[in-house]
């Protein structure tokens, strides 16, 4: 009796320390382990958390449906504290805990240290939502993937859509030089523009995300003989709000295009009654997604986290686990080489948020179906859907 109780006590203890000794536990329990080396604190947390919550929803779904290869998926976490040095440590920490796949921070710069750690251990890693080509084969190595879509696709999508559907001909390019992501959007735009009939670049300018004022840039737009049809704004938060607000306050009514980074309704109070503003999104957070399953996902997300997804950057987390689990299932093993090979076979693999393709050259999306979200009278909503006619070529991505 005493002996049994002691044993029970010991196994309870073993369970309690499982997160610390995941490597042993994995052998003991036969679980598949997904390690999240993401930011639980610091400024990246705001970006990592929603995508991670979405990933957890997919993991719970898979576990509820019987798991992966008949095993349950277990999750281990390590906090990168939004610090690059801590990122590498967090990567090591989840690998020590037996991670078969490592999920790293959304942003390339902050996710790369953990991804490189995973790469050197020969494990598959996924960036939660990095949109630079470096988040993959080119920057980290052959086991690294990104769950999102390249920034260049967003710029190209907006240019072609505005040209075809809105009759835009005169484009103005306004680039925020502070972040690589922004340059990616404008690179995609630059590649697409010459392919559009009668479209021309009316002018271009740059600013910095934390510029206190972009009055000089706005004066240049106003000095044009004719207000441009569309302003391709390549920027992100918080500078985007500031730029849009100042452009409208100066009385410029051109339609404004941007990348997905400005999705969400949380900032719209800053620019009351904003109209003619468009961004590409992978799915709608506004409850009007043409796919009812996305709306159902939003409801589930709200149930789990207490609030609706704030932006479309929630969704890549779900896609990531989805495609990875399918690859594991097809490979019949969690061996990194076999999983990567299966991922690279995916060509237009359907997911809840559009088809996904990976090749040995590109572990990222150079073409994707996007929904077009319009802000009209201060209210956002989905108005259209667009897939660029050609994938963005490697030269434009490596610029």
């Amino acid at each position: 009796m005493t002996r049994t109780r002691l044993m029970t006590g010991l196994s309870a203890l073993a369970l309690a320390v499982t997160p610390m000794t995941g490597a042993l536990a994995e052998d003991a329990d036969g679980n598949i382990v997904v390690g999240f080396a993401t930011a639980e604190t610091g400024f990246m947390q705001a970006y990592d958390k929603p995508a991670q919550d979405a990933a957890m929803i997919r993991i719970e779904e898979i576990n509820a449906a019987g798991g992966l290869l008949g095993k349950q998926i277990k999750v281990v976490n390590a906090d990168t504290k939004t610090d690059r040095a801590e990122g590498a440590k967090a990567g090591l920490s989840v690998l020590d805990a037996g991670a078969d796949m490592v999920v790293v921070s959304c942003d390339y710069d902050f996710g790369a240290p953990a991804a490189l750690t995973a790469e050197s251990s020969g494990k598959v890693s996924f960036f939660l939502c990095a949109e630079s080509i470096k988040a993959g084969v080119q920057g980290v190595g052959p086991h690294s993937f990104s769950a999102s879509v390249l920034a260049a696709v967003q710029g190209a999508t907006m240019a072609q859509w505005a040209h075809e559907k809105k009759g835009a001909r005169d484009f103005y390019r306004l680039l925020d030089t502070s972040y690589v992501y922004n340059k990616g959007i404008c690179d995609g735009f630059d590649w697409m523009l010459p392919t559009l009939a009668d479209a021309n670049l009316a002018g271009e300018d740059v600013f910095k995300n934390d510029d206190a004022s972009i009055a000089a840039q706005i004066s240049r737009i106003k000095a044009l003989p004719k207000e441009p049809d569309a302003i391709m704004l390549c920027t992100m938060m918080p500078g985007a709000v500031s730029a849009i607000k100042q452009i409208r306050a100066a009385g410029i009514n051109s339609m404004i295009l941007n990348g997905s980074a400005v999705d969400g309704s949380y900032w719209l109070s800053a620019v009351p009654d904003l109209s003619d503003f468009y961004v590409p999104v992978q799915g709608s957070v506004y409850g009007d997604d043409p796919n009812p399953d996305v709306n159902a996902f939003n409801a589930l997300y709200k149930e789990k986290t207490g609030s609706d997804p704030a932006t479309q950057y929630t969704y890549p987390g779900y896609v990531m686990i989805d495609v990875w689990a399918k690859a594991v299932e097809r490979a019949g093993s969690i061996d990194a080489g076999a999983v990567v090979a299966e991922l690279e076979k995916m060509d237009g693999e359907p997911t809840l948020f559009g088809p996904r393709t990976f090749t040995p050259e590109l572990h990222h999306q150079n073409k994707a179906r996007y929904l077009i979200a319009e802000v009209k009278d201060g209210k956002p909503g989905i108005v259209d859907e667009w897939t660029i006619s050609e994938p963005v070529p490697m030269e434009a991505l490596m610029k």
Partner: protein
Amino acid sequence: MLQVLFDALSLGSLYALGALGIALIFGVMRLVNFAHGDVIAFSVFALLWPSTDAVAIVFAGHLPWFLLIPFVLAVGAGLSVLSEIVVFRRFRHASPATMMIASFALGFVIRYFLLMLFSSRPKSISLLPALSQPVEILGARMPLLQLITILATIVMLIALSVFVRRTRFGLEMRAAAENFTMARMLGVRANRVIMGAFALSGALAGAISIILGAQTGTADIQMGGAVMLMAFIATVIGGLGSLEGAVLAGFLLGAASVVMQTVLPPEARPFRDAFVYGAVILVLLFRPQGLIAARGTKERV
């Protein structure tokens, strides 16, 4: 041309107000207050209710403008005075380098306090939305806010210079700036003058936060950083400790930035700030003591 002038003046106003806030404190206690930028951020966040949600919960921001503006100025002044009482008073006999490090530390404390309450996600606010209307003046079309910024800065500068030149407190402050020890011996109450300088400097930070908040529609815990850097550079070019110099250099920096943005070819524009800082280096090479050197900082034999 007129448009460029207005753009330059409005950006310059922002830098001039920031530079003045730093120069005021440097004048009385030789402290370069690097927490100034965080006071700016704090003043904006004071309008919001603490929450880590993506959507800002506006609280004091709903006040009508005639209450909102004094409220923000008071928050800035209050926090600044508090930082003097809690932190800088203990460092009064420390070397300027020590004080500067203390101000960095204080800035971090304020920023991480905001991070804790509001998270790192920038919040959007509609501050004084009526100012986001375009107006036309002498053929130049600009947001009303730009005009108000310029006018408000001019009014504040005039009021401040009257205050510094015509009131007893201003006299004490100028005396303290020139020679603190001598001023104390002649009966200037150190604590009162220093606290006054901190209050004024904090109120100026509040003014910047209203302008920035209304212009960008954003409350971000790092929002004070860029203005603080420019303002600090302006105080150096202006001549550390010289109030007129700080204001002049603030306007010059704003003008340089706008002119560079306007005249540089597109390929060179991403390096605008490098050109602006290059100009700063040139100025300092020819006038290391600053454009208008403060009398108190000259070396005495």
